């Protein structure tokens, strides 16, 4: 989230799309109801289903799953053609006036530079024109045909309300109402928040869904302002934390990058990422990348990391490719993986295309599961009839289950969607023989270390180089780890005058103190300050709101630097004055930046210097035109899901995202609209938490059995009665469940054709207290987003039929 | 032609006094089971009917057991009364003379039996007790099943149960009143009780109250 949960209360319009906050984030959703009740905010929901969020909305518009970009592009077109943009904001805080290099183009669904054989783009033409001063060229009049504004006008012209209706199925009047409600916030005294979740990410074009929304917010001037923002609602209590800590193979803690094969030296790695400003007087904060990176290496290798050995850079593994979950299981499926350690991971349920997952797991030598509960994955080899129809005699994988404590049985922290890190205290003793994850990993590390010390072997050196510095090496405490994430001074840190600003051994108060000479450490720069000289800030529980702007600055700690709204300099105009009194947040008081929040800006840089509010970007402004930072194009394009009931009505030659992640074998099991005319979409239910709570009795009581949501029209067409068993199948598998026939789903007219959608809740499996069911990812296709490789769980093709069985 | 007023087992034994067999052992056992059930039902029912009588539930081991046991006694009553019904229904059929008897209720109450027509085995009052009890018990068992939640709660709507509970209550009141009449009559008309205790009455009793029945017993002719 750019903004904060509590900040939603400052919104005048709340737009939920690509998510169902009431269903999946009921606690956070309270801030939506607060905004509605306390300031009369309007809520609009766009979703294939009339959801629980829609139940309390002021406006609902249906949409075909997987057509979000067409819809959002339609909104952008509406804003541009009706001039419903916050001009001063857009001109000063986005790259709308930037001129794009000659040679850039977009034709019939493809940008310049596409290589069909490799399914990748050469993105070199997606760049600004650079002037003789080394800075990007701009045209403040926005008249230049290659300026971003003109490119956008051209790019979006075809997304008319009629086109949106044709592609997304949203009735024109409902679509226009969304546009109008959004446009009402282009004024500076009103703001809109956009809340989304996996309904936008789990597509072959997921990242571009979100970019489209971010662009809308930039055009409306809603980024960096209270009640605004583009707000990703994370799906687990600590999934933001797990992202921050860099568990994806290509990233390191704090969104630093994993070294790759093409970066043989530390300098070659840092050089690529230490961006020089593209405009005069810009902060370009990533210039500090090297300080964070070296501090990270110092934490990892301790005293062994020296300037001479590039701080241990050579011990770091170098990636050939990113091992996202799709590739991981593809490699495993090819029989190239020996063992898999699942830590709080139930891939049988959560990875697309279950049949392939089972086949892949069957090829492992061993599988280890660290989990508080028994997962479906550890029983993948067991025959559960039609729900998991395997032959155990054919599977040789040895499975180990290591019971771990649940979150309530240990101290630690949770990082929530709005980056707020809150400490939680152990509430119960561990159950049975369970141990904390960290203890199991420490034990594993120490045992392997002993083996390496004794026997040596491949990889011994990097393994033994790791600094393992805990009071009790077998039981590192969560507190110690948090301190380690924060970082400390390794020697006395001095300012330019030689005064000691931070004594050796003391915790750093902010990442601004980090240095690239090895004199500081710190695993996760963005968290620095959480455990500074004043102790564990995550434990703070002061719910005072001194500004009255719903900023609870003394509650927990918000990364970075306890900042509650990112880019909050943008809440003031270029002169430093708030856009309006209603949205007064961070402003220039004549001497420094001040206000309700920690300014996301160097507090002493006066407005006159023209430093942009988007300090992470070398331009100092945000990007409507993404340059080469997106794999699938600098501007979003409507592509169909890989399984879609229609060909791309806009670009017939390019159906799906041309650079989406898809492996050969997976490509061949896509189904066609001829055989599978119905759109399937998956989601979770409020009664359950993923695949966990099906093992919890009371949750099972609240929602006991897998079901399939279908419209009354489809029920009639197929002769399905409410409560009847139905079979849903795709080209990859089938599931069976009870039919929930509802008015909340309606067939849509797509490109002249009636398209039905069915809803498939994902929480049910064959282990637990709920009735046994086949996991819904028996159906889902293995195709990933071009940028994030997130699988396309939200839009695929199925068919449905009633089957005999108990009619409830 | 008149039908016989004599039931199997009825017979007359000359002597001093004359003794007349009125009820067989089976009939008497049947009667007393019915009587006991009815009394227990009245007590337990009244306990649940009016708060001031809730203390009666103590006789049955408390409110819960009262609630549990009452319907089962009802079942016993029903079948037991069914036995009586099958035994006695024929002799309780209404006759013209019963109307005459009813018309002279004042003589009945003032014990001027001499002004009443000769009565067979049952007089009109007894017949009315018989038929009203038959009807009331049928209504009670039917409405009772509707409100017997332990086994039948799913089969009836709440509205049906409300009606049933009201009917059950009113019917029970009427039944208790009929029962009072029945018991009082047995006490008031001296010599009656032995009919149900020992099965016999004196000839004088039969002469006074059921002369036609006695005559048929003696003469063998209805």
């Amino acid at each position: 989230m750019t903004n904060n949960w509590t900040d939603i209360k400052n919104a005048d319009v709340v737009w939920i799309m690509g998510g169902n906050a009431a269903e999946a984030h009921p606690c956070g959703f309270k801030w939506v109801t607060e905004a509605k009740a306390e300031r009369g905010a309007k809520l609009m929901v766009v979703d294939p289903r009339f959801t629980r969020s829609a139940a309390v909305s002021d406006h609902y518009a249906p949409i075909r799953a997987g057509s979000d970009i067409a819809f959002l592009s339609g909104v952008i077109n509406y804003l541009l053609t009706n001039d419903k943009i916050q001009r001063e904001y857009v001109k000063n805080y986005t790259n709308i006036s930037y001129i794009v290099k000659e040679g850039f183009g977009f034709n019939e669904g493809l940008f310049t530079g596409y290589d069909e054989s490799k399914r990748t783009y050469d993105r070199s033409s997606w760049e600004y024109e650079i002037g003789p001063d080394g800075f990007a060229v701009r045209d403040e009049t926005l008249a230049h045909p290659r300026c971003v504004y003109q490119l956008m006008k051209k790019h979006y012209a075809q997304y008319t309300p009629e086109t949106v209706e044709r592609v997304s199925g949203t009735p024109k009047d409902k679509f226009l109402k969304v546009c109008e409600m959004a446009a009402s916030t282009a004024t500076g005294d009103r703001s809109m928040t956009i809340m989304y979740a996996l309904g936008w990410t789990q597509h072959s074009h997921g990242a571009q869904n979100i970019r489209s929304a971010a662009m809308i917010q930039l055009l409306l001037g809603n980024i960096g302002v209270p009640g605004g923002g583009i707000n990703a609602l994370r799906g687990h209590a600590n999934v933001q934390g797990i992202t921050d800590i860099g568990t994806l193979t290509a990233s390191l803690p704090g969104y630093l990058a994993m070294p790759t094969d093409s970066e043989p030296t530390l300098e070659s790695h840092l050089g690529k990422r230490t961006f020089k400003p593209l405009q005069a007087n810009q902060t370009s904060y990533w210039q500090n990348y090297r300080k964070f990176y070296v501090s990270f290496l110092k934490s990892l290798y301790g005293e062994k990391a020296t300037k001479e050995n590039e701080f241990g850079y050579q011990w770091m593994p170098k990636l050939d490719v990113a091992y996202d979950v799709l590739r991981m299981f593809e490699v495993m499926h090819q029989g190239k993986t020996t063992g898999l350690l699942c830590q709080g991971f139930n891939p049988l349920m959560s990875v697309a295309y279950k049949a392939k997952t089972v086949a892949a797991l069957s090829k492992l030598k061993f599988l280890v599961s660290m989990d508080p509960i028994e997962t479906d994955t550890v029983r993948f080899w067991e025959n559960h009839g039609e729900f998991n129809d395997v032959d155990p005699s054919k599977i040789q994988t040895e499975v180990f289950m290591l019971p771990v404590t649940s979150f309530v049985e240990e101290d630690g922290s949770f990082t929530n969607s709005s980056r707020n890190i809150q400490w939680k205290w152990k509430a119960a003793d561990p159950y049975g023989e369970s141990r904390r994850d960290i203890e199991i990993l420490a034990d594993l590390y120490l045992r392997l270390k002993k083996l390496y010390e004794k026997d040596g072997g491949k990889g011994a050196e990097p393994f033994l180089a790791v600094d393992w510095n805990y009071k009790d090496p077998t039981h590192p405490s969560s507190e110690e780890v948090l301190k380690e994430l924060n970082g400390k001074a390794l020697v006395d840190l001095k300012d330019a005058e030689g005064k000691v600003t931070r004594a050796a051994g003391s915790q750093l108060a902010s990442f601004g103190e980090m240095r690239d000479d090895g004199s500081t450490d710190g695993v996760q720069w963005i968290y620095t300050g959480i455990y500074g000289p004043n102790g564990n800030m995550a434990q703070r529980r002061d719910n005072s709101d001194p500004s009255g702007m719903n900023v609870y600055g003394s509650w927990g700690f918000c990364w970075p630097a306890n900042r509650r709204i990112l880019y909050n300099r943008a809440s003031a105009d270029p002169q430093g004055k708030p856009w309006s009194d209603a949205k007064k947040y961070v402003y220039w008081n004549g001497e420094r930046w001040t206000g309700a929040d920690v300014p996301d800006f160097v507090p002493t840089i006066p407005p006159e210097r023209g430093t942009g509010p988007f300090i992470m970007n070398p331009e100092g402004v945000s990007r409507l035109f993404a340059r080469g930072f997106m794999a699938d194009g600098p501007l979003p394009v409507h592509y169909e899901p890989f399984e879609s009931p229609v060909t791309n009505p806009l670009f017939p030659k390019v159906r799906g995202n041309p650079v989406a992640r898809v492996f050969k074998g997976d490509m061949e099991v896509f189904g066609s609209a001829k055989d599978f005319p119905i759109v399937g979409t998956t989601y979770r239910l409020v009664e359950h938490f993923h695949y966990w709570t099906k093992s919890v009795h009371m949750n099972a009581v609240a929602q006991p059995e897998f079901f399939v949501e279908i419209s009354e029209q489809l029920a009639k067409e197929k002769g399905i009665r409410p409560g009847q068993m139905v079979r849903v199948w795709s080209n990859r598998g089938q599931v069976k469940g009870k039919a929930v026939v509802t008015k909340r789903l309606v067939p849509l007219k797509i490109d002249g054709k009636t398209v039905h959608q069915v809803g498939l809740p994902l929480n049910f499996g064959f282990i637990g207290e709920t009735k046994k069911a086949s996991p819904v990812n028996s159906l889902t296709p293995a195709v990933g987003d071009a940028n994030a490789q997130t699988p396309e769980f939200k839009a695929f093709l199925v068919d449905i039929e009633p089957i005999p069985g108990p009619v409830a | 032609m008149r039908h016989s007023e004599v039931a199997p087992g009825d017979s007359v034994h000359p002597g001093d006094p004359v003794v007349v067999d009125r009820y067989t052992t089976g009939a008497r056992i049947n009667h007393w089971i019915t009587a006991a059930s009815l009394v227990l039902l009245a007590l337990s029912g009244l306990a649940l009917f009016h708060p001031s009588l809730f203390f009666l539930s103590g006789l049955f081991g408390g409110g819960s057991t009262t609630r549990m046991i009452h319907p089962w006694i009802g079942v016993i009553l029903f079948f037991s009364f069914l036995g009586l019904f099958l035994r006695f229904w024929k002799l309780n059929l209404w006759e013209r003379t019963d109307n005459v008897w009813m018309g002279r209720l004042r003589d009945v109450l003032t014990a001027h039996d001499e002004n009443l027509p000769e009565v067979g085995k049952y007089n009109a009052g007894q017949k009315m007790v018989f038929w009203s009890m038959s009807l009331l018990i049928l209504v009670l068992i039917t409405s009772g099943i509707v409100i017997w939640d332990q086994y039948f709660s799913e089969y009836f709507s709440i509205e049906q149960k409300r009606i049933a509970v009201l009917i059950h209550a009113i019917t029970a009141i009427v039944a208790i009143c009929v029962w009072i009449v029945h018991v009082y009559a047995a006490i008031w008309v001296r010599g009656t009780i032995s009919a149900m205790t020992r099965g016999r009455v004196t000839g004088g009793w039969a002469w006074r109250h059921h002369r036609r029945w006695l005559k048929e017993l003696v003469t063998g002719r209805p």
Partner: protein
Amino acid sequence: MFPPIPNPTTQATPAKFGEADLIRRSASNITPAAKRQTEVAKLIDVSKCIGCKACQVACLEWNDLREEVGVNVGLYENPHDLTPNTWTLMRYTEYENPESGNLEWLIRKDGCMHCADPGCLKACPAPGAIVQYSNGIVDFVKANCIGCGYCVKGCPFNIPRISKVDHKAYKCTLCSDRVAVGQGPACQKACPTQAIVFGTKDEMKKWADKRIADLKSRGFKNAGLYDPPGVSGTHVMYVLQHADKPQIYAGLANNPTISPIVELWKGLTKYAGLTAIGAFAAFGLLHHIVSGPNRVSDEDEKNAKRLAQGRS
């Protein structure tokens, strides 16, 4: 935001109300204390409810109830009805608003309404099995319940359920144990959107006014408070978008009253019945005193003898 009720202390707290605060006790005559407690109420704002069932689960948790894992019958409701273990239940209605043409998903939390004039209590024959405190809470006292099911017939909202296991009646207690120590009910505590708030009845009515004004501003011109006068008001109230049509909210009673049949049963019948029984008994007694026993005379015996001899 309605000011949240602060968490309790860890110290033992004396109960704020008890036996002495009863204003009604089933099948008993009591004299209520002169000093009344402030009336409390739970306000359920249907327009804020997202149907998450947190209240349902909180109720199970707090009251230590174990419901069975059921099946799906083609609906979101689970369980499918109130049970002796499920004292509160989310009921979902898909309503097509004929005026706006919009679909509305009306989600109502069903459970005991804690009527000011409770039909269950009126119907109950067991002394002290159902009690009403002067703060408005209507509570079932398990120890006194005899499981007759009369409360089910008395209730205008179809709320009490009789357990097949212990044959006792169960329903929402408004968490009288929590309220007694200054807490709100468990469902209210668990509600993430403040669709359930708890406080004094006056506060709740005032809060409802604010909510109704908001709903009216959003086009729900019939928004209103459900506090039905037919049962002299309730201590669980609803804010409804369509207060003119309570029935559309999964059959919420339009104008609930204690059934006239129940009134007749527990009113006239009760008194008239005992009077009738008394009258019959008294008549018998009087008759016996006045006219004495109807004895068989010696003459009768002689006549009988003659008759019998005549035969032989």
